């Protein structure tokens, strides 16, 4: 069905108007915190809902071209939509609607001590920029929106600037995102210069003609730029710092959606703008994906800060997506378009799923933070009794991200596995081995992810509370729970009825690469490459429910007694049980620390203070097993030291005030642009 573009533009205008109204309204009503809160998040909510409609219409085939020649220098501002952009708009909306709803309740905690007006302004701008980025049709529009998105998110990250570490985290984010920005700028300008046009739509045609060396250079530059936004290892360092620092509904958006725009860029580069490239492009992406997946989850596995754990697991999931993308590129190179489509569908599906369950988990972490004022898992525990509903929702998120049936993560990871497994059709030993290792990496990643979220959920929600704060936790207010419930339902729906997504996704990919993905699916089942692999999620779910219902009935029929007595946990008859007896998050992660010691290079310290009378009575035991971050130590420290020495020369410019740096960046940007004209 075709949607006429006037309708589309109305939807888009409605979106922007709502978000703009939210932004300005929040600023105007800044005086009364409550009003600012509701106006800000309300505007965002309405805007995101319209955006959802807009995206869906786009997926349904609606097209749109907007061109404002004099809005921006060189080339003007050009917006347009195709299915791929529409898909990402939908993904953004799926996460943004609950995030806005969540924000209404969550930001109450900031009343009085933070400017909710500024926050609302930044929040709406952030969402608006994210929605517009995939629509950008030429270099300058894209870069401008990209920069707005980065700045808005930067200001949101440093909201809680009074906490120590927040500004530092913001600064790291700021530097990394602009390093990435510079790479993008260079890449775009090179390509624009080589092709003689700044319009994306033309590149698809002309870029193939560009000489290979500069194509390679452009690819590397753009890959680095988008990779740094996506948080691919080793460009991930900002992610575990910035995401925990931001307010939880913002972390949800940053981790669930913003980093996906890096994925969007990579898809565009690899399959639209530059077209098929040499083997090593795909190989590079595949290897980067494998490394990000394994290392990301390994870091998540040992972290005790709940939100940082989630941030690292975002790195892992980006890795999984990269595996799909890289596989797609390699298939494209091997002239197997059907498999290219399959791999792309898998990657994009996982992108959407991750947006759903990662936002859910971040909101859950936020709810915990809200209720207990701590993110440190060592002080949590027992929350399943004090906040039962949050617990169930967080559990659903954990199951989904651990890729367990019947939730959505399972489907996309299954698809990724299938697309890696069909690789044996390629007849080149090196590629085969590469894929074999990719499969091993993905398998290890998924196994470790399951372990990681057993730990995350088990330590924070089960057993006895490990601190007074956790003991006095209370269920959060309804808007927060409603937001999480919406996402949980999304996870379930995408998990049992994948065809909801696969149908539009398949056409999207068809538009992109011009061939149908080598898969068939109907409402209940999907099959890959003929009968190579098949899955019937709906039936699996029904089977689970069915058996779950049958077993208790059967037990009753055969007359099993149901006498139950509640008593203390069995601890070999020890006198009392306190939370001190429980396994800690650190202890839980210890086996992994030992097995992967090579990667953690953790430093262990144990100092025991004995009783003066006898060595058999211990006063205090302090155990510390800190994992070191290899990339920070090996890659960034030297880099920063170098930069520092440069900065010392430029001390005259250095005012220490972050905002003046922004001015410098802006000046530099404009200067660069003028140079190229």
């Amino acid at each position, binding site marked *: 069905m075709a949607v006429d573009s006037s309708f589309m533009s109305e939807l888009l205008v409605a979106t922007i108007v709502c978000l703009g109204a939210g932004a300005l309204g929040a600023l105007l009503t800044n005086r009364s915190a409550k009003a600012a809160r509701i106006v800000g998040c309300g505007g965002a909510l309405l805007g995101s809902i319209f955006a959802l409609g807009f995206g869906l219409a786009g997926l349904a085939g609606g097209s749109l071209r907007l061109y404002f020649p004099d809005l921006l220098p060189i080339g003007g501002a050009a917006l347009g939509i195709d299915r791929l952009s529409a898909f990402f708009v939908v993904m953004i909306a799926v996460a943004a609607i609950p995030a806005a709803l969540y924000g209404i309740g969550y930001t109450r905690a900031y009343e009085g001590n933070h400017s909710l007006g500024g926050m609302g302004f930044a929040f709406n701008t952030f969402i608006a920029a994210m929605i517009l980025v995939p629509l950008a049709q030429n270099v300058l529009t894209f870069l401008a929106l990209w920069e707005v998105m980065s700045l808005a998110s930067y200001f949101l990250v440093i909201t809680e600037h009074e906490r120590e570490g927040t500004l530092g985290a913001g600064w790291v984010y700021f530097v990394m995102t602009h390093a990435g920005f510079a790479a993008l700028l260079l890449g775009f300008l090179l390509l624009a210069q080589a092709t003689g046009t700044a319009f994306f739509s033309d590149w698809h045609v002309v870029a193939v003609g560009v000489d290979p060396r500069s194509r390679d250079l452009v690819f590397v530059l753009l890959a680095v730029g988008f990779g740094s936004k996506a948080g691919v290892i080793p460009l991930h360092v900002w992610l575990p710092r910035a995401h925990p620092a931001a307010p939880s509904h913002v972390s949800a958006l940053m981790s669930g959606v913003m980093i996906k725009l890096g994925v969007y860029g990579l898809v565009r580069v690899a399959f639209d703008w530059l077209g098929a490239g040499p083997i090593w492009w795909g190989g590079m992406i595949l290897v980067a994906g494998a490394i990000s997946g394994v290392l990301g989850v390994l870091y998540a596995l040992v972290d005790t800060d709940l939100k940082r754990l989630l941030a690292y697991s975002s790195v892992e999931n980006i890795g999984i997506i990269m595996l799909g993308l890289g596989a797609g590129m390699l298939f494209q190179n091997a002239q197997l378009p059907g498999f290219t489509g399959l791999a792309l569908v898998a990657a994009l599906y996982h992108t959407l799923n991750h947006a759903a369950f990662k936002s859910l988990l971040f909101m859950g972490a936020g709810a915990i933070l809200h209720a207990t004022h701590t993110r440190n898992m060592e002080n949590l525990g027992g929350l399943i009794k004090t906040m039962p509903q949050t617990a169930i929702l967080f559990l659903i998120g954990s199951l989904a991200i651990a890729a*367990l049936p019947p939730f959505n993560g399972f489907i996309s990871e299954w698809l990724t596995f299938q697309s890696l497994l069909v690789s044996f059709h390629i007849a080149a030993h090196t590629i085969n081995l590469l894929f074999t290792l990719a499969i091993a990496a993905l398998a290890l990643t998924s196994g470790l992810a399951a372990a990681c979220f057993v730990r995350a959920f088990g330590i924070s929600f089960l057993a006895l509370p490990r601190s007074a704060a956790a003991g006095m936790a209370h269920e959060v207010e309804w808007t927060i729970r409603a937001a999480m419930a919406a996402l949980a339902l999304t996870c379930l729906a995408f998990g049992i009825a994948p065809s909801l997504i696969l149908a539009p996704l398949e056409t999207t990919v068809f538009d992109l690469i011009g061939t149908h993905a080598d898969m068939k699916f109907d409402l209940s089942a999907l099959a890959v490459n003929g009968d190579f*692999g098949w899955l019937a999620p709906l039936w699996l779910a029904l089977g689970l429910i069915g058996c779950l219902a049958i077993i208790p009935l059967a037990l009753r029929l055969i007359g099993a007694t149901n006498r139950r007595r509640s008593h203390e946990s069995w601890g070999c008859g020890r006198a009392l049980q306190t939370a001190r007896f429980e396994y800690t998050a650190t202890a839980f992660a210890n086996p992994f620390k030992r*097995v992967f010691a090579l990667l953690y290079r953790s430093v262990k310290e144990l100092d025991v203070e004995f009783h003066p009378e006898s060595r058999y009575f211990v006063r205090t035991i302090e155990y510390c097993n800190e994992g070191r971050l290899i990339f920070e130590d090996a890659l960034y420290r030297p880099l920063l030291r170098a930069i520092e020495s440069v900065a010392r020369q430029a001390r005259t410019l250095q005012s220490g005030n972050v905002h003046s740096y922004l001015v410098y960046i802006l000046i530099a940007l404009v200067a660069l642009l003028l140079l190229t004209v």
Partner: protein
Amino acid sequence: MEIAIEFLQLAIVMFASPLLVGLIRKAKARLQARRGAPVFQLYADIRKLLSKETVVSENTSWLFRFTPYLLATTMMLSALIVPVLSTRTTLGFMGNIIALIYLFLLGTFFLALVGLDAGSAFGGMGASREVAIAALAEPTVLIAIFGIALRAGTTSLDGMITRFAAEPLLMLNTGHLLAFFAFFIVALAENGRLPVDNPTTHLELTMIHEAMILEYSGRYLALVEWAAGMKLFLFLTLLSNLFFPWGVALDNTPVALVIALVALAIKLVVFVGAIALLETSVAKLRLFRVPELLAGSFTIALLAVVTAFFLR
């Protein structure tokens, strides 16, 4: 007809699995010069447990009471997917071998959570070790699957068995045998058998699987034990039918089914003997030697894939 066979297979898994465990115990007892418990002991145990009171720790949540049912559920569902007797399974379309692996992982996930639920140190220890081993076993499983899938050209259980049944000289195929060994080691690890975990240990500090279910009693314990039995049965069935597909019914004629049943019984008995021999002759590995074992199995799986590529 076909659906009837499906449920026949389910029934076999559900009701024969305790017998399988009993057989292993009996064989081990014999090798240890003991009479050993009668092979039907586990049925008696389960019947007794179902008639006993259950003691539930007051620290636990609904997860503790929910998980036993879920464990049994995942195993029953897997029993519908695995071709026990016939490759013409009506419900086989529910998932391929990868879906099966994830179903098992679902059970492990909840069991580990339960280990943490009661807040006792043992449970946490068991949970941590269980997930560690499960995670480290995962690559071997998938690589071994890759190794056989790329020769069979499919990842669907029925398809793979059909192809292998048609293949002559299967037992001379290096990649096939390597994949089998890798899978066998993983099966031992996943089911908490020696040399990874000692199913009969009484020492909490050496426990893995046992440590997580220390808190269970009465009907819950019965369900958990039964589910563990079904898991073992399914893994051994998978091993015997996937790698030694002789006698598996390719069509649903009664004769073929009877042959399949007999063949399955024989293969399982062989496996029982092998496991009993293994468990009487090897000692439990130190926990931190287990990764080395899994690394070894991973090596074998990798070699299986490499040979399959280079010698195809």
